[in-house]
């Protein structure tokens, strides 16, 4: 068993007396890609927000660093499922990335080092050409990639991606899968992806947690991603599901890499 990066111990979330998560206990392995799967309303996003410390929860979330369990959060890169924001805001992609890393107010210009770091992250995700575009004018796929660039520009120890392929076009998906492959190969980053898209899950995840208010199954991808488990989590039509219902040939065929790349 690989070293654990995040340990969830009886995590429960209740909002307005409605239980969204109940006694979730799971381990997220260090330096690997974990997929969090489950039907709509299973509490996947809620669990991500609890790990981020954005919503209150019961139970404990530990971050294991150098063999010690800590409750202090390390640097976490986060890509939300959907970014609701004021699309008329004159904010360029470069503004957006430096916003989170730079303390000097943006109206006094960029700090050279922060600017370089942001450009490096944009380059890594293949969206450097968007740097002067306003974020409100990006397509859904472009925005997702910019969000991913923002997340990695913070040099995170943990990366949490909530439905990263939602709204991404085919070329975006290729880049995204290449990024995941690279992360896997390097093995420095602990990554958790919430995804409906089984092609992404089967293509990249090394560890899988099936969630439906509580943990239904968890373990190494080959053991967990059995037809029986998938059917139990998603229902009998799971095998047909692809993101965006894009039926064009090759639309979701970009994550067909073998399960393990190492």
């Amino acid at each position: 068993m690989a070293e654990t990066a995040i340990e969830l111990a009886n995590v429960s979330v209740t909002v307005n007396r409605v239980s969204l998560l109940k006694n979730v206990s799971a381990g997220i392995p260090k330096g690997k890609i974990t997929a969090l799967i489950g039907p709509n309303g299973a509490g996947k996003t809620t669990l991500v927000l609890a790990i981020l410390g954005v919503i209150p929860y019961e139970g404990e979330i530990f971050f294991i660093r150098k063999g010690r369990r800590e409750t202090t959060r390390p640097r976490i890169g986060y890509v939300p499922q959907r970014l609701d924001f004021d699309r008329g805001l004159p904010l360029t992609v470069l503004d957006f990335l430096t916003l989170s890393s730079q303390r000097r107010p943006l109206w006094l210009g960029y700090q050279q080092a922060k600017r370089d770091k942001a450009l490096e992250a944009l380059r890594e995700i293949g969206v450097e050409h968007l740097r002067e575009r306003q974020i409100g004018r990006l397509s859904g796929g472009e925005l997702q990639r910019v969000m991913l660039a923002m997340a990695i520009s913070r040099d995170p120890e943990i990366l949490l991606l909530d439905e990263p392929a939602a709204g991404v076009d085919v070329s975006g998906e290729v880049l995204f899968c290449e990024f995941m492959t690279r992360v896997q190969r390097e093995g420095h980053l602990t990554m958790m992806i919430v995804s409906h898209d089984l092609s992404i899950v089967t293509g990249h995840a090394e560890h899988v947690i099936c969630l439906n208010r509580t943990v239904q199954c968890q373990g190494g991808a080959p053991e967990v991603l059995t037809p029986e488990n998938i059917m139990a989590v998603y229902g009998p039509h799971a095998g047909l599901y692809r993101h965006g219902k894009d039926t064009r040939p090759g639309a979701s065929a970009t994550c067909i890499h073998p399960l393990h790349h190492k």
Partner: protein
Amino acid sequence: MESLFATIYSLMDTALPFAWAASLFMKRAFLEIMLITPLCAIVGIQVVNYRMAFFSDAISHSAFAGIALGLLLNINPLLTMVVFGVLVALGIAKFKTRSDLPMDTIIGVFFAATIALGIAIISARKGLSQTLSPFLFGDVLTIAEMEIAITFALFAVVLIFIALSYNRLLLTGINEPLARSQDIPVKIYNYIFAIILAVVVTVGIRTIGMLLITALLIVPPASARNVSRNVRQMFWYSLVFAWVSGIAGLVISFYTDIATGASIILTASLCFLLTFIISLVRR
């Protein structure tokens, strides 16, 4: 402080050799406007970003009750206006965390309650209504040197806060969960910003009036947004539009006898219209 102001006035005589700037009351009005308009603009950028125009309106209208309370209790009404405004701002912010009601509904409740309180006091004490009129429409021409000094101190404090937290405030306004995921203490920033907004709004009422102060907060940043391509431009254009509207409004009011607050906001609105047309042409 007197000698400091005397020096400033003599410098103004050299720099502004115009008829409108000759009298002492116009010099004081000019100084106050040079401070209050950019102050409102830098706070207003976040008001627009946070969609807090209605919140700001509720604070400015709460001044009605704040002033009435001061007059009733025989305390300086300027002080009660600011303190009451801050309490209303904190009340709305606290209520929001404890209620599932939409923000505009909560603000609407506070808005109505404070206006009703003001009317209740004024109607019970008939003599008070005269004293309120300068606060409704503003009266920058009677501004005192002490008030200019207070505005200057407030400007300095707000500028330091905005300089230290501008990026974080902006990110919080864009998306709160994203900001919180980056360890930004969103709640603390929200409270501090609510307090700053309440103080700026209530201090600005003396110049622009409670009916129009929200306009001074949102119109210059809105005009800036029409023509800005990035965050840096939005900030500086907001300042420029606020200054231009303020000074042009003051000069226009001197030659036309229009209330200064109204002429400033009309000038700012004209700026908005022009920048809006520019934005349409650019598309």
